[in-house]
């Protein structure tokens, strides 16, 4: 192979690899990232069932129903809108009614119904009085129900599938 041919080969190889990688990245960014929303923001959007998202807010007082040893339903609220969440797995230690929570999962029913349903596959709870996921702190502040100090945060590693 001539010097020119070698050079063309390597340039082609490099461009090809980067091109394929770019394609995969763009494709993956469309399908496999999840939005962080509050219940009100979800109500404003028309998302189809099956969309992945992270839902942040407070666990509504009196809404936690324990269906079995490792299966619960509860309602995430931001004061104006509610979202019903079902979750199977060990509940995080600091999961309590009236406390901040982030549930990540799949939207179960079309958003047109009265209350959105989320099938959660992971639930993050407030970690202690000072440590809280930043997303929860931000959304609580936005809704004016923030009570804590600075949002020094650590992700409460609750459950992952």
């Amino acid at each position: 192979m001539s010097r020119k041919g070698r050079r063309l080969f390597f340039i082609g190889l490099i461009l090809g690899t980067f091109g394929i990688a770019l394609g995969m990245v763009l494709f993956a960014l469309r399908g496999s990232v999840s939005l962080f929303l509050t219940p009100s923001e979800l109500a404003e959007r028309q998302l189809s069932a099956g969309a992945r998202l992270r839902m942040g807010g407070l666990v509504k007082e009196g809404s936690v129903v324990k269906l079995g040893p490792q299966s619960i339903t509860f309602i995430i609220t931001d004061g104006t809108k509610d979202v019903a969440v079902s979750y199977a797995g060990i509940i995080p230690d600091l999961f309590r009614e009236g406390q901040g929570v982030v549930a990540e999962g799949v939207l179960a029913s079309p958003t047109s119904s009265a209350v959105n349903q989320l099938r959660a596959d992971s639930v993050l709870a407030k970690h202690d009085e000072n440590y809280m996921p930043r997303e929860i702190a931000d959304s609580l502040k936005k809704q004016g129900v923030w009570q804590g100090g600075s949002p020094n945060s650590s992700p409460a590693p609750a459950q992952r599938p």
Partner: protein
Amino acid sequence: MIIEAGHYALVLALALSIVQASVPLYGYWRRQPVLMDMAQSTAVMQFIMVALSFAALTYAHVVSDFSLRNVVENSHSTKPMIYKISGVWGNHEGSMLLWVLILALFGALLAIFSRHMPQVLKSLTLSIQAWISAAFFLFILLTSNPFARVGVPPMEGQDLNPILQDPGLAIHPPLLYLGYVGFSVTFSFAAAALISGRIDPAWARFVRPWTLLAWIFLTLGIAMGSYWAYYTLGWGGFWFWDPVENASLMPWLAGTALLHSAVVMEKRDALKVWTIFLAILAFSLSLLGTFLVRSGVLTSVHAFASDPDRGVFILAILVFFIGGSLSLFAFRASTLRQGGVFAPLSREGALVLNNLLLTTSCATVFVGTLYPLFLEALTGEKISVGPPFFNMTFVPIVIPIFFLMPIGQLLAWKRGDLLAAAQRMTVALIVALLFGLALAAWHGEPVLAAVGAGLAVYLIVGSFVDIGGRIFVRKASTSQMLARGLGLPRSAWGTAFAHAGVGLSLLGLAATGWGVEKIVTLRLGDQIDLGPWRLELTKIEPRPNSNFDALVAQIQIRDGSGIVTQIEPARRLFKTRTMTTSEAGIATLRMGQVYVTIAEQNADQSLDMRLYWKPYVSLIWLGGLIMTLGGGLCLSDRRLRIGLGRAAANKGKQKPNAQPHPVAAAE
């Protein structure tokens, strides 16, 4: 008094680093060898000063001096001694001090172990090194002073974050920092080469041990961090594609690429510009990691406190060094002349492909880590990029690397024979196929796990094909073969072990597909089957401790013949911070692990728990250890020690073909 001395030593270190940064550079400009030589003594002194400063902070933590804000916020008088010491770097200020301590350590080592190095290269490298340390000394003194006092000292401290109260804290951060900061040396070498415009195979030879050293520690640090997360976070995962993990993976990928491209440069005088670029890239990514973790832009247990000033300061350091080095690169790279030519199908070609795939995979991690941050900054929209993204982008790019690794080793320099290489790989392919089929028959679904395990075995066996070919020849007696094996250069063994280590980790990863996971509620005396084991809950008891109360469950593990071992998963309630942590009960059995975490006790005395059987999971970290063993063997290769003086003496007239044939030499 000791505290003030420590503070003062840090200021002195800053002053020394400014001298070390400027005087040798001026000396280089004015051709004054005496001024250039100053770099060495200042580097050593600088390290001594930082070490004194670090010792002072450690002293304050050990004696629980609550007049120091850093101690108040992160310590407690009842905290066990090991966490009083390791707690020194379990906070923002202290961890930055550890960062500069290691930076100064590398500077001092460079000054001491560089006798054979040309003076220009040595003093310029040390000067750049001092620029970096000066920036970080300023950062610590201006925004994160660990020696700040409180007005009225409290009687008691606020204790260390319970998640950090683990032996891992004593090991993981120092190892990781040795890796991160180790790449500063290669960065300084690259900048020095660009400034002097002089770069040759001898340069690659000087840089190689430092790259290897940084790579070994980074590998160990990442493996250790992964195992720590695995046993402490309680859901049995070992890699979460968390931005903080990605921050350490990116320099590792760039550093691995650098390690391989430097070989091409050393042996064939090719890929110079690219190698320089990788050296800059590896440390730039380390700096980026430091920025991501220390600035508070990320939500993580690693980000101790967020303070906008610090973020802006580190960002400024980041921009200065990355921007500065890349501009230097843009201006000067064209002056570097390209060396040896090679055919696409050759060892060099294979290493180019390796570099291409490694940097591309690094780029996908980069996008996945920073895209959410950019998006939030620009549009305010919050998204999370999780494992699905990386499974769709990173994984497809690295799988070809696993396929090509053993083949690349068999290709000759300059012009290789792919067919011959493929033929020599048939043994590895057959073994892998049989092994994959056997595992599939034994463990069953999922097929993907068996395929992955087959690929891993191919990689492990394939890594030794090259060495095997050099040792086993016809009509040679056992002792002759042994002599041939011992006669091989250590780097050949190191390469084989490092590559096999990757295969071993891959085997552990693939085997996760055969794992068993159960969520159950057990009462005292209940039994449950988990994979090949039977577990029985034999005891639940409270166990008070100095700074926490624990609830411990005792679980016996049995196989068909009797009790194998027992584990004690626990929950700990830390008194000072009223925070609970979960301690997994782990037993390593036949390379796999039984892993149990418990929830709080129910009202009826039963316990909710999560049980896992993870076959071969320990191979993931064992593979990491084998990789570092390989790196260590390469580091001890005589070519790196003996060649140094000679290479420096007659640089400019290299041997036409530097590839020695060790077997021929041994005979």
